[in-house]
C-alpha cells in the first residue's frame, strides 16, 4: 500500500520536475500518468520488474481505490463557489444557462464525431 502510493507520488514528482525543467505547457501529473503507463508496459516485457508495487496487483489496487472516490477530490475546490456568491447573484442565471447549453452541445458534438469517426476508420461498430 505505502510502496504503491510512493510509486504514484514518485511518478508525479518526476513529471512535475520534467515539466518545469523543460518549460512545456503540460500538467505535471499528466507526464506522471505516461510514466506509470510506461512502467506497467515495461513490466510485461521484463518480468524482472514485477516486484514491490509493480507486483501482486499493488499499484493497480491502490489506483483503483483512489479512482473509485474521484468525486471526493473535487469538493475542496468546488466549495470555492461560496466566495463568488455576489457575482453569481448578479449574472448567475445567464452564466448557468450558458454553461448548461454549452455542455450539452459539446457532449453531443463529441459523441457524434466519435461514433461517426470510428465507423469511418474501421467499419467496426462496437456495442458492449
Amino acid at each position, binding site marked *: 500500500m505505502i510502496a504503491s502510493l510512493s510509486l504514484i507520488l514518485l511518478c508525479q514528482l518526476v513529471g512535475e520536475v520534467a515539466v518545469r525543467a523543460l518549460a512545456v505547457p503540460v500538467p505535471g501529473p*499528466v507526464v506522471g*500518468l505516461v510514466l506509470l503507463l510506461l512502467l506497467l508496459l515495461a513490466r510485461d516485457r521484463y518480468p524482472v520488474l514485477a516486484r514491490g508495487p509493480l507486483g501482486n496487483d499493488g499499484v493497480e489496487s491502490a489506483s483503483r481505490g483512489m479512482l473509485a472516490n474521484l468525486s471526493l477530490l473535487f469538493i475542496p475546490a468546488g466549495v470555492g463557489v461560496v466566495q463568488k456568491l455576489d457575482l453569481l447573484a448578479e449574472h448567475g442565471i445567464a452564466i448557468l444557462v450558458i*454553461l448548461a447549453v454549452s455542455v450539452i452541445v*459539446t*457532449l*453531443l458534438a463529441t459523441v457524434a464525431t466519435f461514433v461517426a469517426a470510428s465507423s469511418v476508420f474501421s467499419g467496426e461498430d462496437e456495442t458492449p
Partner: protein
Amino acid sequence: MSDNPFSLWVYLSQSPLLWLTVTLVTYAVTDAVSLKTRRHPLANPVLHSLWIIGLFLLLTGTSYTTYFAGAQFVHFLLGPATVALAVPLYENRRRVAAAVLPMLVALAVGSLTAIVSVVLLARAFGLPRDIILSLAPKSVTAGVAMGISESLHADPSLTAVSVILTGIMGAIIVTPLMNFTGIADFRGRGFAAGIAAHGIGTARAFQVDEVAGVFAGIAMSLNALVTSLLVPLAVTYLLR
C-alpha cells in the same frame, strides 16, 4: 468538559481536523445516498456535498481560506489520482489503441465546440468581456483552466467556479442525454464526458462503466493540452 464551549469552537474551527472531517463525512453521506439511488444523476455526490458544506461555512461564518487549510489534504490527491488513471488505461490498452483515430478527431471537434459555444453564447447574453474570458476555459480541469484564465488576465477564481459548475452539470446530464440519443458505445459516451466535463465527468463515467471511465480520463488529459493552445486563439478571433 470546558465551561466555555465557545473556546472549544474557536480552537476546532481553526484546526485542519474539523474541516477535513466535515469534507470526508459529507462526502461519505452523499456518496452513500448516491449508491442507494443506484447512482441516479441528480444524486451527484459533488453537487450535494458543495451546498451542504457551503451552507455550513456560511452559517458558522467560516472563511473559505480556513476551510481550505483542512480540505487541502483531499485537494492534493487530485495529482496522484491523475497519475492513477494509468492503471485503467493500461488494463484497457487494446481497446484504446484500436480507437486512437476516432479519439483524435472527436478531441479536435469537442474541444473547439466547448470553447466556441461558450464564448458565442456569453457574447449573445451581453456579458462583460472579463467574464467571457473567465468562462472560456471552463471544460478543462480546474488547475489548467485557472492557469489559462491567468494568462488572459481574466478572473481565475470565477474560472474555477465555472469549471466546477460545468463539471457538475455535465455529470448530471450525460447519462440521460446519451440514453436519449440511443448511443450505446461507452467509449464515445465516456470520451464526450471527459471533453465536456473534465474530472467530474470522468468520475461520473467511472460510476457508470469502466470503459467509459478510461476514455473519459484520456479525453480529459488530452483536452487539457488542446484547450490551453486553443483558448487564446479563439478569444482573439471571437472577441474583437
